[in-house]
């Protein structure tokens, strides 16, 4: 999902997650109406990251990830697995605030992955990252065995990992299609660059 600043991407995420209420329209999951309370998302197999970092600074990295594992026993093995997956297991005992920004974003990804979601919602995961980190992120998104909903401004990333792209502008969808289709869409270019006038 892409769109210019203020298009309503995060708001849509918030509606899906139950942080905000939609004035019209409905959300469905598995063909059933879906209006969850935010903390019930994980029961539906949905995990989400936040813009920037939403970290628990008073807990170690390992504990941060353990928090993400709901249902059943929160095992350290599962947490380590997620940390390994994101390449930050060596920091398990550190406090997130002591890590560089990029590593903190990885910790947050690890927390989301640890719950083994079937839908992973990523809100601008590439924001503030350098190209090396973005490459790693792209690799992760490509290889992860789950549906990923991605809100992102980084076009290269979007184009390289997405199967389908939704373009929002002023709260309205203006285009939907594969990367190739979107790339050529005039309306999209207009929305991003402003009308010629």
């Amino acid at each position, binding site marked *: 999902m892409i769109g210019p600043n203020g298009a309503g991407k995060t708001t849509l*995420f*918030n509606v899906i*997650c139950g*942080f905000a209420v939609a004035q019209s329209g409905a959300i469905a999951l598995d063909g059933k109406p879906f209006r969850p309370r935010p903390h019930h998302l994980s029961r539906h197999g949905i995990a989400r990251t*936040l813009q920037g970092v939403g970290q628990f600074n008073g807990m170690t990295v390992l504990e941060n990830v353990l928090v993400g594992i709901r249902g059943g026993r929160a095992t350290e093995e599962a947490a380590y697995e997620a940390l390994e997956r994101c390449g930050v297991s060596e920091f398990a005992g550190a406090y997130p605030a002591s890590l560089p920004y990029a590593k903190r974003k990885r910790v947050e990804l690890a927390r989301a992955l640890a719950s083994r979601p079937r839908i992973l919602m990523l809100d601008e995961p590439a924001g503030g990252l350098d190209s090396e980190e973005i490459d790693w992120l792209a690799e992760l998104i490509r290889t992860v065995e789950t549906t990923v909903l991605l809100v992102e401004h980084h076009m290269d990333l979007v184009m390289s990992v997405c199967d389908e792209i939704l373009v929002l502008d002023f709260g309205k969808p203006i285009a939907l299609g594969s990367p190739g289709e979107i790339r050529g869409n005039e309306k999209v270019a207009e929305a991003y660059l402003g009308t010629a006038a």
Partner: protein
Amino acid sequence: MDRFLYLTFDGLSRGAIYAAFALALVLIWRAARIVNFAQGAMAVAAAYAGYSVTNATGSYWLGFITAVAGGLLLGAAVERVVMRFVDHSSPLNGVVVALGLVLIIQGVLGMIYGNEFRPAQAPFSRDAFQIGGVALLSRYDLFVFAAVGTVVALLTLLFTRTPTGLRMRAAAFAPDVSRLLGVPVGGMLTLGWALAAAVGSLAGMLVVPTELGLHPNAMDLLFISAFTAAVLGGLDSPVGAVVGGLVVGLLLAYVSGYLGATVAPMAVLILLVVVLLGRPDGLFSKAKARTA
């Protein structure tokens, strides 16, 4: 009806003092995000200074000015000497330091002046004007209203019409950005504390003649009522502080008058619960920023 009128005016004149004191709490909260639990003790210290000057010179007004100026200096000193060095990573640290200051101030005052009530003069007669047999307001009450009104007006002017006020607000909301813009954030913080302490001292001077007298603990109860008022109105809102103060004053008067003094604290609790459940950030809170 007579009784209702009487209680209304009784409540308003006390409420005005709560309002002034609550305003002092709001000022510091806005400037430093600290609930200044030492506000009461600081106001008492200033009032003692005023008391000493009044006793030495025989002039109430010299004492009054000393108290307010003393409050100003004490506020600045507390910020410069102590609060500046508090680690604010946990909001509790500031609270605990403030509580420590309360003990120090009360202890030192007790050592200097003794734990006795000292009589406090009122500059105007406290005999109420009678209208149709109902005692309404005294000259002193009018003085209280005028003083509190003046303070509110001056603060409003300061914050909305002067560059200093603008800088203080900026420093409080975004210290880092303000620093880049050349606002002396530390200085603004000191100024905020000084102003708040001066307003608190003024409220203290106003309340002392209406209560038992001057005592190291004289403002403990005022602090409780004023804090309640500030929370009720919304800690970010000066208007809320004034309205909250008046509401608490009226509530205490009505409940004490109609139901008995014993139940008054329960009434305050119930009011707080009702208001805060409806509006968790007080009556005059602004809309919240988006959560995610």
